[in-house]
């Protein structure tokens, strides 16, 4: 028996790191409070989903609400910076996009947990990429928040990697996704985060595009099947969603640790491209 809802440990770890940072840097209290409240709301939604499965349409709507603390505390900047384009003034549109900026990564991370350690491992890479990019672009807030999240994530990855000793549960995946979305918004790393999140976006997008609607895992055919020798194989069912796991296994069966390794390599490549995006943003006049 492997314990689920290990994501609680991430929330506890984040509480400690955010509290210590707020004590050391009182001028950042509002920023830290909006970040933590966003993560906590997503975590509570995840906990409810773990105990009583939420409807596939209700969950994204609820996670969109997790963006409310950022809106209410006005800790965002409506001037996102893009590579080549530079700073853009979006005073009216930007606040409307914040709920999506939290709900999309939150649910995308939640959907990308097919193998042991893939969710925690890929999110650790995304956090490292956001930290590195914030250092390149001189975004101290993003660096601070990334460091706060990195510690609890590394611990979760240690226990969640193959063979997993603990599962994160929806409480972990939804809160981590929301935290990463919040770092992108609060730290003005929107473009970098989109590139770093490419594997997660790919996975969610392919699934939604093939099924044609929001779906809960139990509602559709399984995209991956287990062979007698313990290897995983892509399902041949044309109705099954084309997820990243299914595409990875399309060339032939793999053991779970091998498939998880492919995901980690993919996240690393997306990370390199994200850092390149940060560099392009930096050199944009």
């Amino acid at each position, binding site marked *: 028996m492997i314990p689920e809802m290990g994501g609680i440990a991430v929330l506890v770890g984040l509480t400690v790191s955010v509290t210590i940072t707020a004590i050391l840097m009182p001028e950042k209290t509002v920023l830290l409070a909006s970040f933590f409240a966003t993560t906590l709301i997503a975590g509570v939604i995840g906990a409810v989903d773990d105990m009583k499965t939420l409807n596939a349409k209700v969950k994204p709507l609820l996670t969109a609400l997790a963006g409310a603390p950022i809106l209410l505390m006005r800790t965002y900047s409506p001037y996102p910076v893009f*590579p080549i384009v530079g700073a853009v003034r979006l005073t009216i549109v930007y606040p409307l996009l914040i709920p999506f900026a939290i709900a999309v990564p939150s649910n995308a991370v939640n959907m990308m947990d097919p193998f042991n350690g893939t969710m925690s491992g890929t999110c650790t890479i995304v956090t490292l990429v956001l930290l590195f990019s914030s250092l390149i672009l001189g975004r101290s807030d993003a660096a601070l928040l990334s460091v706060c999240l990195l510690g609890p994530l590394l611990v979760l990855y240690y226990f969640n990697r193959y063979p997993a000793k603990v599962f994160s549960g929806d409480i972990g995946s939804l809160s981590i996704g929301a935290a990463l979305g919040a770092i992108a918004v609060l730290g003005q790393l929107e473009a970098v985060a989109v590139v770093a999140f490419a594997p997660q976006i790919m996975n969610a997008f392919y699934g939604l595009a093939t099924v044609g609607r929001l779906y809960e895992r139990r509602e559709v055919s399984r995209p991956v099947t287990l062979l007698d020798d313990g290897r995983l194989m892509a399902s041949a069912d044309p109705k099954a969603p084309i997820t990243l796991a299914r595409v990875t296994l399309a060339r032939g069966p793999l053991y779970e640790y091998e498939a998880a390794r492919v995901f980690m390599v993919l996240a690393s490549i997306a990370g390199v491209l994200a850092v390149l995006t940060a560099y392009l943003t930096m050199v944009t006049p």
Partner: protein
Amino acid sequence: MIRRVLDFVFVLLFIWACMILGLWVIDSFIVPLQLPGVTDDIMTAILKVAISAVMVLVWLWLWREMVKRMFWRAVKSRQHSADDLQSDSQSKEWRNKVIFKNDR
């Protein structure tokens, strides 16, 4: 393993390059666009957003099509190799039977 990763690398690079190219097109052509006969600033802004939105949709469609084709091509190539193996083993079996028959 390398082949699987390479497939994704190709998709990621293509999608990233398209995104950067799209940003350049928006910055160089769509933002400075002055539509003939349209004097209303709000109307011009809405048209610019609509053109950019169409570009994003095309980008997403390209992404989806690429992966869909990549997936089914990989599945078919796996099936072909499985069929080849099967036909190869069948022909070996038939050849053994013939040799055995001739020997007798």
